[in-house]
Structure formats: structure tokens, C-alpha cells
């Protein structure tokens, strides 16, 4: 955070004093007065920088940032906006913690309240990575987060409600709303587009072929998948990530139900400690032809806990899957198809979330446990190859395998013919997905902006826009022939995150007052053009949301310090004064 001197007054005063002190040094009484004055810190004005994605990569983020900046300005907080390309933005914010305010889309869906654990637990605040990016630390919160892991039923629901209420009070980040993602999709070659990318592109397996098409062509404004396919690198992975198609997990969550995927079934075999026995499918194969066995699964869990596999003096855990991997005490391969997993102190409900973590091949990743020598990541501590490797070509076991990539342009994947969906009859996976992909190849093509992406789909050069497009394009999509306008509520909410390591954002009272400068209703109207549902909690839309936190125009949960989408300067000043802050003559908020 930049702190600017309060105008020029302080500087001139100081230099005047310096001159004075030279001339009047003889007078000791005056000296002590000078010392008292000079010793006082000059008050600095509050200024924050908001980091976010440019329009080409996110149709909404920068417009949100601009609106926030206007509201902050009205309260006397100087706010500047920095558009940054995705990979760099996520590295700066999530990994290196170089930000004040960060506006973006949460990289994934809150399937279970336990996602709060890695997001808010204070043990993660000092590490780099997606876990606790805001640096929030609070022992009471830690206690609640740990409790909900152990509890079940209404007890857990109550604890989760308390976590959410607390979150809204102390605001390490503000949930703004859930976008209704707008996509253009051609219907003359494939059908069944609804929910094809949300929450995971694995749902593309549910598409039906309507013509003799063999190649599914998707456009994206995100060039990260063409540069890196490492499922452990958070700065390259977004919501609805392509690596979900390359790597199988033991289980897959489809429409809120957990289905067996690489596993055929699982059974609880112990309660103290909690123990789960997972049986894998027979004849699972990696894309390079090697067998996938239980030992790959136990290896994956050791790797997630420590990517150096204890070869370095300190553990180097992954950034992604951190919350889920922390549930595991030990994972042991009993035989080729059986894994026994022992958990830390948690409920079965929480423990089951572990099954959705991708399985990595031991024979590939075991060579990536060395200390990484070159990396753009400033972690200050050791990192391993596993956390910096581009992982191209990737060897997974998923329904699609890697074919080719051209840097910054195209990624091509093809159907993996030895996948269990292709080789087995009865799989137990949801019937929509059970037939495997309806296409031979998937081509993901980088396109500079959403408007040309829609154009490619309208012209028949592409089948679908993999990421959402801006609301102004909805009418063009609607008018185009053979193209359907698909709108899916995404579970990846937009948020404004605060770096609580940097003053004055360290102060919960300050953050809480800043939160009252945000009018979600206005954001949804002016920025999202109505294509979003305002919300205050990541769990909005689930049964975990307590009714008092349900956003409604008449119940915005946090009171907005203004009317009709404009911040009332006087009320904002009053609120910050009540929080203990002061303003200078120019109406700028002072740090101290």
C-alpha cells in the first residue's frame, strides 16, 4: 500500500523546522518542543490499489473494480485500479500476497462448508497459496472452522451459520454475487449444453452429438491452459478447469451427489481414527499405458501433503487442495485396487470431500520432488518442481488425453479409448455421463475477446464459448442462427478480497465500514446487467445459508451508506469517524 504524505504541508513544515533548529539550537526549551513535534509521525492518507483482470479476460471484473473505486473515492479513500493478466494476477495475489484489494471470481465452487477451512484458517495465513489468501487470523474463527469439521447434522449447520455471520462482520473478503454465465453454443452439431461447463468441464461428457461431428471446438479468452496443465498450480487454474478432463478423481460430484468415479465404492472401516477403505476399478490405465493402482492414490496424498516427499528439511505442501489434503492422516495401499485412508479428527461428511481430489501418476510425479531451482514464485521458502512444472504433456487417467498445444493459441485433447467409461459396461456413474465423450477431439482455442468468440460461434467456426461472455453480447447470440443462448448460474462467486496483512485493512472495523460502501444491488444492475444473483455468503443458494443472510433488496444484510447506488459522503465520513478514523481538510481519510 502506498502512503502519501498529507499534501505538501508536512514536508515544508519539516524543512522549516530543520532550518529553525539550526538557528535556535542554543535555546534548549525550544529544542524539546521541536523534538516533540518532529517525533510525531505525519498523518498519511489511505490509498488502496485494486488488482483485477482486464475486460478481455473477464467481462465483469474491471467494471466492478471501477464501481468500487468510485464508492471508495466518495468516502475519501483514494483507489487506483491495476488490470493484470490472469496468470500474473493470481501469482501476485494468491501466491505472493502483493495486493490491497483483489476483485475476481473465486476459482471454484463451494461444495461443502469445509471450503471455509482453507480459506480462513489462520495456520494458512503465513503460507503462500490459495489457502487463506487474505491473511485473516482469528482464534475464535479457527475454533469454529475446526468444530464444523467434526460436527454433524444441525450442530454443524449452526456452526456453519456462525462462521458465515462472523465472516460478514469481519469481512476478510466480500462476496458480491453469483454470475449467471452467458455462453453461445451451436446446436447443429452437439446438444445438451446446459451446465456443460459448470461446475466442471467434465460435464461435457453429457453432450449429445446431433451430426457426424467428431471435433468439439471451444473458444476461451484465457490463455493459461495453453501454457500450463499442472493441476497443482493455483495461479494457472480457474473455475471450470480443463485439467478435470485429464485427471480422474476417486469420486465426482454431479448435481450435488457424489458418484463413484475412479473408485467403484468406498466403505467406512473405522471411527477412531476415522478410516475409509476405497476400492478402485479394475484395469484403470494412465494415458501412457501404465496401470493405475492403489499405490498411485496413496502417493498422491503423500505428495499433496509434502511435494518434496520428505526429501527437504521442510514440508512443501500444494496450494490447491490444501484444505482437503489436510484431512488425511495416512493413505496406504492395501493391494492393487484397495486404499485405506485414515483421517484426522473430522466427520464422515467432511472426510468424503477428499475423494474429489485428482489422482496423479506416481511414476511421473515422483521425479518432481526436487527443489525447484528456477521459478517466478517468490515464496521466500523452498518450492519443488511439482509446484512449478508446466506439466506438458500431462499424463493423467481422465476421459480425455493430451494431443498437442501451441503456446498461446490452441490446446487439443482427444478421447482416451482405454478410459473406464469406454471399456466398462456398468460403471455406476450418472447415466448422462456414462457413455463418455460424444466427440473424438476437443479443441480449446484462444480468442482475444468475448465479442470475437461469439462471432466465431455464430459463423460456425467454433461450437461454444467455454468461458462466459459479456451481457451486451446476449442479444447477438440470441439473433444468430443455429446458436443457443445458454445461461448457467455459476457456483464461482465474484468477490472483493482484502489483504488483511496491510494497514488499515488489518482493522476489522475498517473493513466492515468499507463493506458498507458496497451496494450489491447496484453492482448487479450496472455491471452485470442483471446476469448475477447478489449474495453475501459463499454458501448462498445452498441449504447451509441461514435465512437472515439471504440477500434481498429489502434485506441487503449490510447497510449501504448511501442511496440509489451512490455513496453519501457525509454518512461515509461519519461511519469512518465512528470507527476511529480522521479526515484531513481535503476530505481524505487518514491512516492514523
Amino acid at each position: 500500500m502506498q502512503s502519501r504524505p498529507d499534501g505538501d504541508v508536512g514536508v515544508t513544515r519539516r524543512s522549516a523546522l530543520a532550518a529553525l533548529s539550526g538557528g535556535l539550537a542554543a535555546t534548549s526549551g525550544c529544542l524539546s518542543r521541536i523534538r516533540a513535534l518532529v517525533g510525531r509521525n505525519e498523518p498519511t492518507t489511505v490509498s488502496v490499489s485494486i488488482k483485477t483482470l482486464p475486460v478481455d479476460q473477464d467481462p465483469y471484473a474491471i467494471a466492478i473494480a471501477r464501481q468500487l473505486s468510485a464508492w471508495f473515492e466518495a468516502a475519501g479513500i483514494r483507489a487506483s485500479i491495476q488490470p493484470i493478466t490472469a496468470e500474473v494476477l493470481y501469482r501476485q495475489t494468491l501466491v505472493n500476497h502483493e495486493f490491497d484489494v483483489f476483485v475476481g471470481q473465486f476459482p471454484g465452487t463451494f461444495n461443502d462448508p469445509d471450503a471455509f477451512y482453507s480459506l480462513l484458517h489462520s495456520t494458512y495465513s503465513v503460507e503462500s497459496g490459495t489457502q487463506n489468501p487474505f491473511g485473516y487470523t482469528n482464534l475464535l474463527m479457527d475454533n469454529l472452522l475446526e468444530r464444523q469439521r467434526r460436527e454433524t447434522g444441525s450442530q454443524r449447520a449452526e456452526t456453519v451459520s456462525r462462521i458465515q455471520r462472523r465472516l460478514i462482520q469481519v469481512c476478510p473478503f466480500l462476496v458480491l454475487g453469483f454470475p449467471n454465465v452467458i455462453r453461445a453454443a451451436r446446436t447443429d452439431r452437439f446438444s445438451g449444453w446446459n451446465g456443460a461447463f459448470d461446475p466442471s468441464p467434465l460435464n461435457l461428457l453429457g453432450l449429445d452429438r446431433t451430426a457426424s461431428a467428431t471435433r468439439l471446438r471451444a473458444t476461451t479468452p484465457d490463455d493459461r491452459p495453453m501454457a500450463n496443465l499442472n493441476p497443482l498450480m493455483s495461479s494457472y487454474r480457474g473455475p471450470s478447469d480443463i485439467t478435470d478432463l485429464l485427471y480422474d478423481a476417486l469420486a465426482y460430484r454431479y448435481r450435488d451427489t457424489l458418484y463413484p468415479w475412479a473408485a467403484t465404492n468406498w466403505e467406512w472401516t473405522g471411527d477412531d481414527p476415522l478410516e475409509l477403505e476405497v476400492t478402485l476399478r479394475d484395469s484403470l490405465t494412465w494415458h501412457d499405458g501404465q496401470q493405475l493402482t492403489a499405490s498411485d492414490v496413496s502417493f498422491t496424498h503423500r505428495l499433496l501433503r509434502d511435494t518434496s516427499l520428505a526429501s527437504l528439511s521442510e514440508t512443501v505442501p500444494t496450494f490447491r487442495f490444501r484444505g482437503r489434503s489436510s484431512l488425511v492422516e495416512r493413505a496406504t495401499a492395501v493391494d492393487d485396487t484397495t486404499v485405506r485412508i485414515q483421517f484426522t479428527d473430522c466427520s464422515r461428511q467432511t472426510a468424503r470431500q477428499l475423494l474429489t481430489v485428482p489422482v496423479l501418476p506416481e511414476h511421473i510425479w515422483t521425479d518432481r520432488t526436487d527443489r525447484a531451482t528456477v521459478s517466478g514464485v517468490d515464496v521466500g521458502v523452498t518450492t519443488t518442481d511439482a509446484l512449478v512444472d508446466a506439466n506438458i504433456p500431462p499424463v493423467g487417467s481422465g476421459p480425455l488425453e493430451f494431443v498437442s498445444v501451441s503456446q498461446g493459441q490452441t490446446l487439443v485433447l482427444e478421447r482416451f479409448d482405454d478410459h473406464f467409461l469406454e471399456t466398462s459396461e456398468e460403471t455406476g456413474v450418472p447415466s448422462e455421463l456414462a457413455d463418455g465423450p460424444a466427440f473424438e477431439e476437443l479443441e480449446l482455442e484462444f480468442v482475444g475477446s468475448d465479442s470475437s468468440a461469439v462471432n466465431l460461434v455464430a459463423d460456425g467456426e467454433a461450437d461454444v464459448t467455454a468461458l462466459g461472455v459479456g451481457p451486451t453480447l446476449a442479444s447477438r447470440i440470441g439473433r444468430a442462427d443455429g446458436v443457443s443462448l445458454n445461461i448457467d448460474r455459476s457456483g464461482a462467486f465474484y468477490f472483493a478480497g482484502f489483504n488483511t496483512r496491510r494497514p488499515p485493512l488489518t482493522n476489522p472495523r475498517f473493513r466492515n465500514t468499507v463493506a458498507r460502501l458496497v451496494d450489491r444491488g447496484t453492482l448487479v444492475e450496472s455491471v452485470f446487467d442483471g446476469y448475477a444473483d447478489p449474495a453475501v455468503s459463499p454458501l448462498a443458494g445452498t441449504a447451509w445459508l441461514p435465512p437472515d443472510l439471504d440477500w434481498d433488496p429489502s434485506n441487503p444484510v449490510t447497510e449501504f451508506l448511501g442511496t440509489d447506488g451512490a455513496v453519501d459522503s457525509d454518512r461515509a465520513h461519519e461511519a469512518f469517524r465512528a470507527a476511529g478514523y480522521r479526515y484531513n481538510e481535503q476530505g481524505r481519510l487518514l491512516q492514523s
Partner: protein
Amino acid sequence: MGVVAVFVEVIAVLSLMLSVSLSVVVGPDRLRAAATDLPERLRMAVKPIGFLVGVLLLNSLVRNIGVEISWIIGTNITEFIYSLEGAVVATIQSLVPGWLTLYFGYVYVYGYAFLLVFPLVAAMLAAERRYLRHTAFAYAINYTVGMSCYLLFIAYGPRNYMPTLVEPLLFDMLPRFQLLTSQVNASTNVFPSLHTSLSVTVALLAIRDHETFPKWTPVAVFLAVSIVLSTMILGIHWATDVVAGAVLAAVSVWVVSSDRVASLVGRFQSLYGRWR
């Protein structure tokens, strides 16, 4: 329409524009002379054009790896530019009637390509060795300085920064051109505007050597002004980029016209000759 089709379209239109304009500006007499003496003229063009192509190749190499390097060493000046000029681009955009934006869209793509290629071809056909050399050298300066700035400064254009105020008109009106521009340019390469600097360079050289192609001067100036305006009207460049581009153009024309620079280059060449 794929990238190839767009390229073909641009090249076809460009050839048509060139053949019409060359016959008018260079004139039948000089063209006839060129026809009889073509091998000699092509030989004359080899060195300056070869030099320019070399510089362009070097720049494209830098451009390929440049974006990533730029994120490591460059300074993000988007916010700074905005604090300098505010919503100027939005104002300019709002002053231009809708039917004119289509004109500016075409000028941005075809007019620009034409404006750049014409002086090279015309000078070659008319055997204007000095004109050809100066044009090629000035282009090279523009590209090299521009590319260096792209490495040092990261800036997103107004359409990426204030979407609610500035509309991405080029891509809304003529979306197929986005394929072309995203092939050629990263969205962070906006400071300075090379469209502006190269167009103004051509216009300044046309004014300087008015006698060589008298009919070219008004065309060049008109096109250059249109292109400069189009960069802002289409929401691609900031006014600051345009000013920086114009300064770069003036500097490049001064460098190629300056006797002092010429004598310096001459001295280096003779030194190089002796060293060989």
C-alpha cells in the same frame, strides 16, 4: 471466417488500392520507365527493404517472448495514463456519429496497411532511392523504439480499462479483424501507438518531400489524421499513446533527415569497412 480468410481479404483490398493509387500518383511516365528498368530498381530496393525486413523479424522475435518478459520487468502504467487523461477517449468516442465508426474501422485496418506500403512501392518504382531509404529507416526506428516501450511498459487500452464508458467498437462493428489484431498484437502493447507513429511518419515524409509525389501528400495527411483518430475512436488507444506515437514519429523523421546523424552513420560505415 478464419484468420487466413481475413488475411486474404486484407491483401486483396490492399492490392487493389495500391494499383489504383500507384497509377495516379507515380504516373504513367514513371511507371513505364519502371517497367523497362525493373530489375535495376528491384536491386536498388533490396538493401533498404532487406534492412527493414531484418528489423521486423528481430522485433517479431522480441514480440513473441516480449509479453512474458514485460510482465517481469515492465511497469504497469495503465492507471497512470488514466490519471493523466481521464475519460478523453470516451468523450471523443461520444462525439463521433455511429455511421462514421465503420469508416474508421476500415481506415484502421486497410488505410493503415495501404499508407505504410505505398511509399515503399512508389519510391521503388520511381527510383527515388533517398525516399525509399529514409522511409525504411524511419519505419525501423519506429518499430524498434515502440517494441522497447512495449517491453518496459505494460498498459491496457481504454476498451480494457473502462468498458462501461468506452465501447470496443472495432470488434463490435468488424469482429473479424480481432483475429488479425490479436495475432499481431498483445492487448498490453498500447503505449505508444504504433498506428499513430507510423502514419504520422509517412505524412511527415510526404510533406518533407512534397515534390517527389505531389499528389500523395494530401492523401497521406488525410489518411494519417483518420488513422490517428481511429485509434481512439475505436477504443484501442489512449490519447497519451497517440501523443507519444506522434512524438516518436517526429523523432524518427528528424533522425533520418538530420545531416549530423547521416555523417555519424557514414563514419560508422567507414569504420566498419576498415574493420572488415
